[in-house]
């Protein structure tokens, strides 16, 4: 047994590892095919149209047909491309994306049917497994960056530069949000983190960290509303512009595997991993948390998060680049840092012997005090008072404009003069006659 890791891999031989690795690969590839169909179908339903419905039952084979099309397309290499790196970049992308699922626990120990052989439903685990996931993500960016650079063209280069800046900034926020899980779970191994969520899933007590993670995971995978490296309206399709056929398919594959990766990490770290949701976990003394059942819960949570990805894509608009960067640096990272400090203070107080009730009473008192101060703070003078002093310009900017709030119309010259009532009445009569 590896120290600091809950899952027990001592029985696994190299054949077990090989079988598990092949199973994970098959799972990822089929999941990507399914994910593309899922995304297109859900987005279509959100836009009140049917979506792919031609190939196979409910259009399920559509992504397979698309994959075949990409395989058979002409594989172009741009003249100005740096040949070696042009080929290497999509490989790096896919390779790094495939690495992450090695440490994701699909379930606890499972017994292979018809045998006594029992093994964890996880390829491997070690005391720094979550850091390993971050390392894989960091290496995966090289695929995008080098792909954009080696194309020898402007838009891909701009896309890859954006992508670098984006992933580096959002990785900071992501890492900081993961720190709070490490603090609470007391471990960085994925199976231990799942084990620490027996009583409560971390997304409830660590809600701010969870929110930061969800936002930064969308930024990390370059998905809408954060898909600035491949913004169609600005950069054609960013770093993938000069890629075609199978090389393009590899980038595509890596993007969807990365979506599965970050969803799986969110599931494992915040949503209890393979643990059954609350009412089900109480059934029959936790029987649904043993055997092959947990894989079902894990997949359900994974696809729930995938749905969130699609939902966000179908709902939100793309951000402007500078707004996106300042959001990452000025909002997300400070919030994540502040939350780590708050959590650290609570943990320190807990170690110092302050009980939980005392802590909650103190928080409630502090909240009441802050609320009272805000309530009693004198209001600032309304800006309308300042505006009222401004002179009313009826032709501001060359157009006849109405008075702004606080401005008054100048006194009319005709004011007070008698309206010729008779004439108006006559004219009305006249119009009726003509009619």
């Amino acid at each position, binding site marked *: 047994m590896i120290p600091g890791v809950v899952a027990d891999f001592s029985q696994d031989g190299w054949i077990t590892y090989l079988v598990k690795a092949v199973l994970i690969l098959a799972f990822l590839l089929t999941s990507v095919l399914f994910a593309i169909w899922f995304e297109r179908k859900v987005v279509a339903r959100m836009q009140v149209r049917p979506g792919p419905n031609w190939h196979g039952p409910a259009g399920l084979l559509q992504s397979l047909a698309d994959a075949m099309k990409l395989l058979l397309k002409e594989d172009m290499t741009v003249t100005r491309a*740096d040949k070696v790196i042009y080929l290497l970049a999509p490989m790096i992308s896919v390779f790094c994306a495939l690495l992450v699922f090695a440490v994701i626990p699909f379930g606890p120990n499972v017994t292979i049917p018809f045998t006594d052989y029992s093994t964890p439903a996880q390829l491997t685990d070690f005391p720094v497994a979550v850091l390993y996931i971050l390392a894989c993500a960091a290496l995966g960016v090289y695929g995008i960056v080098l792909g954009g650079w080696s194309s020898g063209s402007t838009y891909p280069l701009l896309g890859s530069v954006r992508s670098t800046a984006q992933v580096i900034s959002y990785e900071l926020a992501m890492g900081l949000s993961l720190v709070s899980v490490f603090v609470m779970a007391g471990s960085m191994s994925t199976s231990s983190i799942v084990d620490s969520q027996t009583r409560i899933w971390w997304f409830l007590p660590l809600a701010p960290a969870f929110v930061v993670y969800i936002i930064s995971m969308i930024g990390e995978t370059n998905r809408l509303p954060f898909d600035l490296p491949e913004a169609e309206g600005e950069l054609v399709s960013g770093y993938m512009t000069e890629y075609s056929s199978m090389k393009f398919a590899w980038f595509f594959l890596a993007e969807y595997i990365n979506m599965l990766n970050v969803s799986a990490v969110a599931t494992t770290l915040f949503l209890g991993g393979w643990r059954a949701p609350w009412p089900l976990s109480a059934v029959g003394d936790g029987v649904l948390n043993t055997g092959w059942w947990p894989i079902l819960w894990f997949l359900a949570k994974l696809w729930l998060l995938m749905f969130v990805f699609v939902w966000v894509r179908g709902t939100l608009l793309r951000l402007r680049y500078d707004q996106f960067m300042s959001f990452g640096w000025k909002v997300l990272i400070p919030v994540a840092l502040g939350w780590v400090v708050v959590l650290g203070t609570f943990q320190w107080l807990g170690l110092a012997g302050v009980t939980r009730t005392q802590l909650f009473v103190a928080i409630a008192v502090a909240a009441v005090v802050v609320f009272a101060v805000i309530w009693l703070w004198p209001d600032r003078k309304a800006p309308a008072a300042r505006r009222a002093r401004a002179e009313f310009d009826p032709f501001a900017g060359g157009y006849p404009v109405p008075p702004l709030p606080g401005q008054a119309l100048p006194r009319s010259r005709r004011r007070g003069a008698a309206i010729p009532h008779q004439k108006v009445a006559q004219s009305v009569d006249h119009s009726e006659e003509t009619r």
Partner: protein
Amino acid sequence: MTASGGETLLFWVLAPLMVLAASGLLVIRKAVHAAICVMFVMVGLAILYVAQEAPFLGVVQVVVYTGAVMMLFLFVLMLVGVDAADSLTETIRGQRWVGLLLGAGLAAVLLSVIGRATFRPAVGLEAENAVTNPVALARVLFEDYVVAMQVVGVLLVTAALAGLVLTHRRRLGPRVTQRTVARARVAALAEGRTLTPLPAPGVYAQNNAMDTPALGPDGQPLEHSVPRVLRIRGQERSATALLAAEETLVERRTGGRSELAELSRTAGTAGPPAPETPGGEEHR
């Protein structure tokens, strides 16, 4: 403790490749290729760390050095656009000979030290790693060397602040926000400027180039749809000339189409008319 068979194999596969990549730095001309070599050496080092039961160090090596530091290097290389055209003339006279001499000295010192070193079996790794590798490291760093860690932290924060101060620019004019831009555009409307973005150039069916003006809803060419730079350089194509060319083309096409129709009547199939671009020669 001696290395297991698998670890030895891993070392002997990885080490020559790493040496190859490292020496590639000396020969390779392109800066980005050199950066990739460095990246390979870093990842190889990380794998060796993990194989030697220092998983935390290995993973942090990749996250910090490969993921952040090397990425920033690459970022700058790409932005600056360093390529093979670097000048190789010596700027300091005789620096190569001095460098060679110093390098030989370093090699001699290293070889003599390594040659005299004796490798006794390592002791105490299992005892140290019993509480898991990251916890053991944390105890060393935050219990035994906590003051040193704090000092390094203060140093890094100071350096980061210095970086901020050095690159800080004082704002000369008022900040241009989306709101001010929108207001300025509405105000400029009275002077006959447009509120919307400018029309994109070149929406002719046969020509989609930057230098051809777009057509307005009335069929007239929109001069301001061509980028200002091209207009100033005089590189825009006259819309009337293009339209004339198009008209002759349409005539030729309709003329050709009747011939084609006759042909298809005889052959039974209709081939598409050959595409022809006005001014295609000069554009290429």
